[in-house]
């Protein structure tokens, strides 16, 4: 079968597959669940620790994996290139600084590469929040209050009443499917037009991130044109339409490039042999494990605090239970101790995106580290530039 097997279909897996297909190598993706992208709004963050959130390029030496600036630039350019090729609207230029986005609770959060449907700003500016009455995570009054309190900047809000077909069962996905219809878009436009006279013309209008699954950019553009002012989305919690749009398009792009996606649960990997729960089995030169660590289910925490890797049925560490440690930072060593098997993404230990705001960087750096071991980067970038690797806990 394929030279490389990727287990998992979260962002690390899709990024690895994108690099591999670009150099015209064969790979296959196998996963038993939909991956983590629908959990998040789809921003890829570089580095935003508490004490300096402005310029992640000046903090490269604080990343767990030390890479030179050229390698980081290569990785970010590649990500942006893949996203754009897949039809995900991200700006072509790599940012030189972090952006602020606004959460559904009105807080400002630092982000790096973000699709253009999501509102970001360099400094705090007045904005107008719109909430939907029947959408639990849109809480425009509270959001507006928090934003004003935290930034000292003026803001306003409206909560729109529910459209006729709405029922209490409408979650974000159902809202988005309504917005993908002409009826949904015209309902939204007419409701905003009713309140538009109160909204200052220069303030951007921010909507909850459910403005379509397929037609989001089209809808936002149509609203911007009709209202004569900028309209964007703010991210919600899960399921997140931002991440789902990215996943939909990225998977479709890879399938068009000929990458096979198999559905099945990998239960073991042994000397390159991948075995699925349903009995299928094949050999690959290399296996990339992108199963999401503890959050993704790629590592199991046992009652006594031992961490078990189900693919190899081994204990990879011990965590003192009951201690306030970040589960995110625990994982497999990048190389699994065997040259033909590597970990990437959250399966790889040593990163703490909750603390450091570097979830995107973690994906880029660990995928790069994995692929260096496969040898496919020989004509793409220098794998010798890696200077130090930290892994497994702190």
């Amino acid at each position: 079968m394929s030279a490389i097997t990727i287990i998992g279909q979260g962002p690390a897996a899709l990024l690895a597959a994108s690099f591999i297909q670009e150099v015209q190598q064969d790979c296959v993706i196998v996963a038993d669940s939909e991956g983590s992208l629908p959990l998040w709004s789809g921003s890829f963050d570089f580095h935003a620790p508490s004490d300096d959130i402005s310029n992640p390029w000046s903090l490269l030496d604080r990343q767990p994996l030390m890479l030179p600036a050229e390698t980081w630039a290569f990785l970010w350019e590649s990500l942006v290139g893949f996203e754009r090729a897949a039809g995900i609207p991200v700006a072509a230029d790599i940012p030189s600084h972090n952006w602020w986005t606004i959460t559904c609770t009105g807080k400002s959060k630092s982000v790096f590469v973000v699709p253009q449907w999501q509102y970001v700003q360099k400094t705090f500016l007045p904005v107008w929040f719109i909430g939907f009455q029947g959408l639990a995570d849109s809480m425009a009054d509270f959001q507006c209050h928090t934003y004003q309190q935290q930034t000292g900047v003026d803001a306003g809000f409206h909560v729109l009443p529910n459209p006729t077909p709405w029922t209490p069962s409408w979650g974000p996905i159902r809202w988005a499917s309504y917005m993908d219809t002409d009826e949904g878009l015209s309902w939204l436009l007419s409701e905003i037009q009713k309140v538009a006279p109160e909204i200052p013309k220069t303030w951007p209008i921010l909507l909850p991130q459910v403005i379509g699954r397929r037609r989001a950019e089209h809808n936002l553009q149509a609203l911007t044109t009709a209202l004569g002012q900028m309209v964007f989305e703010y991210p919600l919690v899960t399921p997140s339409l931002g991440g789902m749009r990215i996943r939909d398009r990225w998977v479709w792009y890879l399938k068009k490039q000929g990458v096979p996606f198999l559905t099945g649960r990998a239960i073991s990997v042994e000397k390159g042999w991948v075995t699925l729960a349903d009995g299928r089995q094949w050999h690959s030169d290399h296996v990339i494990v992108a199963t999401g660590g503890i959050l993704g289910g790629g590592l199991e925490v046992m009652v006594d605090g031992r961490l078990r890797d189900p693919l190899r049925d081994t204990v990879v560490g011990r965590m003192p239970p009951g201690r306030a440690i970040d589960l995110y930072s625990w994982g497999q060593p990048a190389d699994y101790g065997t040259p033909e098997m590597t970990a990437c993404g959250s399966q790889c230990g040593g990163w703490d995106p909750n603390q450091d705001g570097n979830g995107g960087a973690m994906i880029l750096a660990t995928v790069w580290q994995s692929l260096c071991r496969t040898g496919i980067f020989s004509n793409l970038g220098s794998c010798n530039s890696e200077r130090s690797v930290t892994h497994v806990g702190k």
Partner: protein
Amino acid sequence: MVVVIGAGATGLGVARDLALRGVKVTVVDQWEPGFGTSGRFHGLLHSGARYVVTDPTAAEDCYRENTLLRAVAPDAIEQTGGIFVRSEDDDPGFEQAWLKGCDRAGIPVTALDPRAVRQRYPDLTTRVASAYWVPDGVLEGFHLLQMLAKDVLAHDGTLLSKHRVTAIQTVNGRVTSVSAQGPNGEVEVGCDAVVNAAGPWAGAVADLFEDPIPMHLSYGLMILFAHRKFPVVVNRLKSPGDGDIFVPHQHVTILGTTDVAQDSPIAPDIQASEVLRLMDLGRELVPGLDSWRVLRAFTGVRPLYDGQGHAATSREVSRDFKVIDHQRRKGPAGSFSVVGGKWTTFRLMAERTADIVTQYLGISAPCVTAQVPLTLHPVTSFSASEPYLCECEKVSASQLTAIDGSLSEWRTATWFAMGPCQGTFCAHRVTALHHALFPSEDSGAALQDLRAERTKGMLPVLWGANAREYALQQAVRFQTLAEGDPQWAGNSPGLKNSSPSSEGVTL
């Protein structure tokens, strides 16, 4: 006027008993109803069977009160029944003593076929040697507290939450008023008598009477599992000890408990070794316990009273209660303490206390709490026109907004944030709703408190699905909702910003 210190089951019970006898009462609590021991127990409505061998007085009280409460407060009680199972490893001699004790206490016991019990409850060990049915039940503590509090208010009583008693004034050796420090400064409540029902803090209040009482505090650890694994209370038939009871509480199961002596009225941080020990003990009854979906761990502090002197271990201290008239000792006239006891016997404790207090006040009015029913003011039922804010526990906005209370009172009344996700997806929504109704309160701090409280309960049991859930919760909080205030502050998984209200750990 009588001031009752403590809004737990005992304090609210005393206040209601007095109010029904026509006495004007004010209940003062440093936090909110149920923040102490009453909100931190396993939910067992004792049949008394647990204590028939070691503590026959408490056993008899429990059985009588159990029967009474089923009649007067059915909304707060689930009549599950309970079973006692003896494992092949346990002493058969105890079984005989236990049967005699149940007979003496008048507790009805039905022998069950051990094989039938194993078939009916396949999670149980295969080593069941004998089994008996007893009239145990499950007590919905927070509901009962709310019912008591509402009834006190309905009878012209006052509830002063978030007020810590700082002094008790006397004139000529008689109690005249109580001073308490609250969010808006100090208040002074004039009174003819003071009842100290402060549970684990009773020792501190007695010090204000200048008549110290010997409290024996111990805390118990409980582990909460998702799913109602048994439809009945499951007790281990041996001398009462650690890890020998499973209580089905609504749709979760609680494994209890441990018994560790301590000095502070606030339980210490939960030790991993203690969690593992409780799991080991639980596994003796339920071998597959590791596969149950764990939700959180919590502790409660038992305010036992060691009137006789010094018991070697707190298991030896009676679960019986005592009403102390401090005037008969070193304290002022009109000062009383009620100490010890069980949740199950709170009404009886209240009755005895109120008898003594009314006698002191020269009022002759009989206790009526054994006859007057308590009803649950129904939480507004779900309206078909709104979405759930808490999807785990199916809580909608109108159910919450019907409650005039703090964020934590909303939680204990509706159980939002108490399900499998432990508030990951609803805490911010409910906080926003609360903010809309109470804009002057610091909603950001209330959310931080709620998060810290949930975190504290999840951390000691970070395994299996709970570890995944915790990782998700952390990522949602810090990567999606930017709760590491103000930006990516270094306070991610820690337990900073804990207010007094989150020092203990509740259900």
